[in-house]
């Protein structure tokens, strides 16, 4: 049973806790706390780093990041540009959304293109239907070097993957862009220290402690607009490797594969060649929340072919400099 240690030993401390001011005041709920902490992290990164950048994919997590940046820095401008690492294999709805949001915010949008990396011979072209997901690391690291960025603010969450579950909120990258999961800096309290030497950089993850459900609840609370593909719609898909891939310029039905008109939505948004759709009739935020809350399959498990290569796909990609 619970043992409360004897009051005669602990009288002063017990009195402090019981009598503290504001004990009866309405406490902030978990979304308030997550929001407040994320704003705090963004301001620390902006203040401690010389040249940060916010990574924006057009997905739901980076949409939340933009709202948090507004909350952290308005009425001022964002103290960083926004950058999209573009694989060239995009859903058109997402690119429209990206450009519209950047224009609405009046902030600088940079696009780092995987196609450019291929054209310059930095990476090999995986072919018209090959995945460009892993190639993004090279494009991202080249852009970091070109612009001299010393911190990248990203929307990755610890609940997404077992390697991400291990990562610090401010995560150090060496001069080669590598993450060393066996030798991370201690990160005590909310004392985020962002000092790096030239050539090294940080990844900052303000949404570290948010779950997929938290993100959707926040999108509902803040009425954040998302690309339409996050909601139920009808589109031609082909089933491949247990995933539903949307037909596009880069995904066509192979021999023996049948095209199906399916009612789907996207749970994550990434490279179109490796991001699967899920069958869903959820067409409103509330319906998506109900669906996410009762799902038996994880977000990445349901939708990301790139995580299925091996047991430690994400760890291996992150070591190379991936998001």
């Amino acid at each position, binding site marked *: *049973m619970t043992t409360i240690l004897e009051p005669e030993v602990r009288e002063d401390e017990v009195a402090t806790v019981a009598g503290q001011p504001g004990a009866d005041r309405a*406490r902030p709920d978990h979304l308030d706390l997550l929001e407040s902490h994320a704003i*705090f992290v963004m301001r620390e990164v902006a*203040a401690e780093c010389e040249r940060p950048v916010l990574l924006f994919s057009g997905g739901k997590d980076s949409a939340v990041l933009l709202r948090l940046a507004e909350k952290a820095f308005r*009425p001022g401008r964002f103290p960083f540009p926004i950058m999209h690492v573009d694989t060239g294999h995009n859903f058109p709805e997402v690119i429209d959304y990206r450009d519209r949001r950047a224009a609405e915010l009046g902030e600088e949008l940079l696009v780092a293109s995987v196609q450019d990396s291929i054209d310059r011979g930095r990476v090999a072209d995986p072919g018209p239907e090959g995945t460009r997901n892993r190639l993004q690391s090279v494009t991202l690291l080249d852009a970091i070097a070109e612009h001299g960025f010393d911190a990248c603010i990203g929307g990755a969450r610890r609940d997404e993957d*077992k390697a991400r*579950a291990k990562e610090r909120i401010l995560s150090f990258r060496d001069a080669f862009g590598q993450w060393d999961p066996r030798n991370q800096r201690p990160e005590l309290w909310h*004392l985020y220290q962002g000092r790096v030497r030239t050539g090294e950089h940080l990844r900052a993850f303000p949404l570290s*402690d948010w779950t997929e*459900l938290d993100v959707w609840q926040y999108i509902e609370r803040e009425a954040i607009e998302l690309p339409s593909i996050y909601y139920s719609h009808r589109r031609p898909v082909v089933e491949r490797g247990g995933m539903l891939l949307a037909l596009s310029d880069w995904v066509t039905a192979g021999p023996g594969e049948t095209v199906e008109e399916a009612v789907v939505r996207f749970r994550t948004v990434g490279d179109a060649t490796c991001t699967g759709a899920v069958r869903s009739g959820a067409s409103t935020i509330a319906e998506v929340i109900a669906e996410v809350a009762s799902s038996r399959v994880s977000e990445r498990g349901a939708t990301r072919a790139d995580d299925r290569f091996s047991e430690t796909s994400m760890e291996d990609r992150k070591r190379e400099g991936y998001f």
Partner: protein
Amino acid sequence: MSSLDGAGVGTGSELLRFAAVGSVDDGKSTLIGRLLHDTKQLFDDQLEAVATASRRRGVEGVDLAFVTDGLRAEREQGITIDVAYRYAATPRRKFVIADCPGHVQYTRNMATGASTADLAVVVVDATAGLREQTRRHCCIAALLGVRHLIVAANKMDLTGWDEAAFRTVEADMMALSRRLEVESVVTVPVSALHGDNVVEPSAAAPWYRGPTILAALEEAPAGAWAQEGGAGARLPVQWVVRQPGGGRSYAGMVTGGALRPGDEVVILPGGSQSRITEVSTYDGPLEEAIASQSVTVTLADDVDVSRGDLIAPVEGAPEPVAELEATVCWFAEHPLEAGQRYRVKHTTRVTPARVLSVESRLDVGTLELGPAARLGDNDIGVVRLAVATPLAVDPYRTNRVTGSFVLIDEATNATVAAGMVGAPVLAAAPAG
């Protein structure tokens, strides 16, 4: 006990942050894996991946430790290297779980996980009892301000559910807790491997009538970390916002109490005074800003305020100091000694610091402070520091934000120490 998949859908849930601590191989990761599994927090694909990883390593059945031990090296060695954060929800609460490494080499990572925890789940192998590393972890957790412990007396199946083995763990943990500033201790006999008393009550220990681990987690005080009494409100300035029409306001996260328009405040360490005219967020003005809220404040006067300064009500404001005494956990291979220079990060200010002296070192076995000239890797001790810019500090016991700092190596930028203002509070050992 209560468990439900997809629970916690409603907003407005309470959030409890806890850290699983204890010695290596006592079963922390297995316990957290079991807790997540039995509360149905694991997705089917995650469970399948854990089963596959277990088979590949010749483990019989499913090794639930692989739920949190996600790194390649961790699975190879069967140990936890760094903290894994996991998330769980029951109808009553949301949980942020930090599964900490037990190995002494990774004590810095355990401290990372425990530094933001409201509560610690201390896992003890009931066949072996408390180890030095169990004591070290409890000691660090208590110094960091964790006031509530749930003790999992684990591997009870290997004792044949021997009540005497459980009572020994319970008594030893009570004795240890009385020496530390711990307010409540719940000890539960469990088998993380088989799931007894983790989520479901077990018939294996009819002599035990207390809660399961989950029930104890649901009943423990949530949000304890942010609830610091005594010192009063403080706002470390993070960011200066220039208003479009001219004028400035100051952004930061409030700690220690509430700030309201009309409050007479002092800006530290400079000492100039002003009055708060507005407290607001992006969503509009507030009647008051409470601890853990990120806000912006505007002052009545055009005083000099920049990042690193502290805004506090004139009444009860801390006194800036150029020298301070602190309890530190040392995390570097080279020893901490008098004369060394570091950078200190305290709230939002970074300033050079010099070690004036090492006052004492804590023996985690006896919980006594003894004289020492230096602190080695993973040692806890008391030091005196001189800082280049005076710091507006509070004792750690009255405010965890203004009472804490880290030391940064000037050459490598590594974080080499966690510091807490003031000497550790340790009750004397009972006589005899």
